[in-house]
């Protein structure tokens, strides 16, 4: 059975002057036990989608179900069986770490002891601070507490809205390691992120932009859809080189990527020669050109332009 089914969900917000189409009719399904990534920048519609699936917001039209329960009719059953970690820290800042966890356990009619196994791995890292008020925790510890609270009732589906935003590269890696251990327990995980490099850590991803899904696939599948040869070029003079490449008529796109620029040509013949010509004409020094595999971010940008 599928853990989450989304069919043609539309959500529009009306403010005094403006109309924002947050979700423009999106559909996808998540298998049980999958880590499914919703990858996209701010304003893509990720939070609206999560709020609809956790029954906190009503869609304008379309259907969605979680664990077989309808998000509108069966909202009570859904609330009992999902865990939700919103993007904004939403625990009680004036309760201690332990009080927060006890509070959520009690609400779901369980106890910390009953499901301690599930959260042990994460909670142990903040247990030394269990008497500290949640509002006084550092960002990383707040995140671990929020995840513990979202797990304490042993949810079947876990919704994590941008859990790694603003988190440094090391803590992000550790967070994903935790998610993979949770997956082993059979929990389905929907996780949103603006970091494209995290796509590779999901079983499948939906790339989302301005309320529309650009692609749904495995990370490898997304990359195989790229379809055009991709070149990496570097030289000592990176910024002028970027402009020279962009000015060239046969270039479809050129984006900086760390130490390289990634270039796609409109036509596929002689593209290496074309790049060499550009580099020669501009007298660029220490030029290095090679063909590369696209990554998710290359794919995302190519899809954005379509």
């Amino acid at each position: 059975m599928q853990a989450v089914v989304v069919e043609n969900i539309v959500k529009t917000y009306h403010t005094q002057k403006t109309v924002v189409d947050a979700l423009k009719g999106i559909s996808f399904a998540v298998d049980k036990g999958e880590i499914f990534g919703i990858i996209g920048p701010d304003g893509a519609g990720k939070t609206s989608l999560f709020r609809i699936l956790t029954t906190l917001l009503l869609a304008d039209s379309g259907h969605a179900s979680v664990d077989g329960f309808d998000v509108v009719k069966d909202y009570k059953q859904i609330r009992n069986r999902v865990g939700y970690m919103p993007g904004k820290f939403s625990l009680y800042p004036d309760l201690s770490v332990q009080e927060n966890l006890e509070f959520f356990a009690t609400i779901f009619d369980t106890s910390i002891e009953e499901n301690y196994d599930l959260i042990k791995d994460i909670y142990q890292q903040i247990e030394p601070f269990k008497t500290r008020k949640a509002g006084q925790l550092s960002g990383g510890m707040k995140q671990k507490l929020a995840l513990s609270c979202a797990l304490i009732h042993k949810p079947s589906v876990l919704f994590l809205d941008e859990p790694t935003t603003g988190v440094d590269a090391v803590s992000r890696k550790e967070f994903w390691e935790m998610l993979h251990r949770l997956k082993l327990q059979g929990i389905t995980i929907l996780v949103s992120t603006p970091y494209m490099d995290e796509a590779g850590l999901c079983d499948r991803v939906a790339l989302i932009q301005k309320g529309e899904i650009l692609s749904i696939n495995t990370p490898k599948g997304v990359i195989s859809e790229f379809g055009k040869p991709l070149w990496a070029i570097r030289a000592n003079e990176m910024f002028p080189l970027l402009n020279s490449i962009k000015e060239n008529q046969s270039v479809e796109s050129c984006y900086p990527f760390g130490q390289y620029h990634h270039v796609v040509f409109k036509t596929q013949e002689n593209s290496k020669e074309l790049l060499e010509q550009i580099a020669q004409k501009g007298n660029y020094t220490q030029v290095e050109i090679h063909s590369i595999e696209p990554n998710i971010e290359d794919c995302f940008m190519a899809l954005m332009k379509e």
Partner: protein
Amino acid sequence: MKKEKAITAKNLTKRFGDFIAVDKITFDVEKGEIFGFLGANGAGKTTAMRMLCGLSLPTSGSATVAGFDVYKQNELIKKNIGYMSQRFSLYEDLTIRENIQFYGGIYGLTDERIKEKTSLLIKQLHLEGKEKTLVRALPLGWKQKLAFSIAIVHDPAIVFLDEPTGGVDPITRREFWELIYEASERGITIFVTTHYMDEAEYCNRVSVMVDGRIDALDSPSNLMKDYAANSMDEVFLHLARKAVRSE
């Protein structure tokens, strides 16, 4: 020829009680350089940056920013730097034009200069016809680009950027970096923190803070050589994983 320094810091230290947030950091930033200031959450980046911006007095050590002393001339520092972060940038309930005018005024530009700058910025950012749009109505990427342009509206010697591109889509993120390159070519020194390691590779030099210290400082290519790494991500993980203190 000796290169001009935009920032010099020597044994710069900040303690909060027993806690040493910044532990004797020593480094220079050249004029016009794009300097990446990296570190895990809690490594001491924000505290160091607050001292350099003249917002917090060091416990010991010395530092100059744009030639001004962080102890005695912090008001002059504030006038000669720009600052932008993802959290604090523009006034959402003012229009694009009003935001430019407001910050121009704060930085003491003449009315005439504000007028010039307003039309220049609007042209550069292709915002013609949108002058009267409330900033709230702009997409995030546009806001960030506008916020950056406004942070350097007074042509400061240095601009401090605290995670300027968080949450922005990948194309806009790159357009943002083009603005950074342009400002750097005009001689403005860029001091930037980021969690995107590919962005660290756009910097001329980067430093990595671990437990309040600067544990590495060099060009990205030299750092990758030194740590036998293929990317700054690997360098960063290698350095930051040995941190003993958590945030």
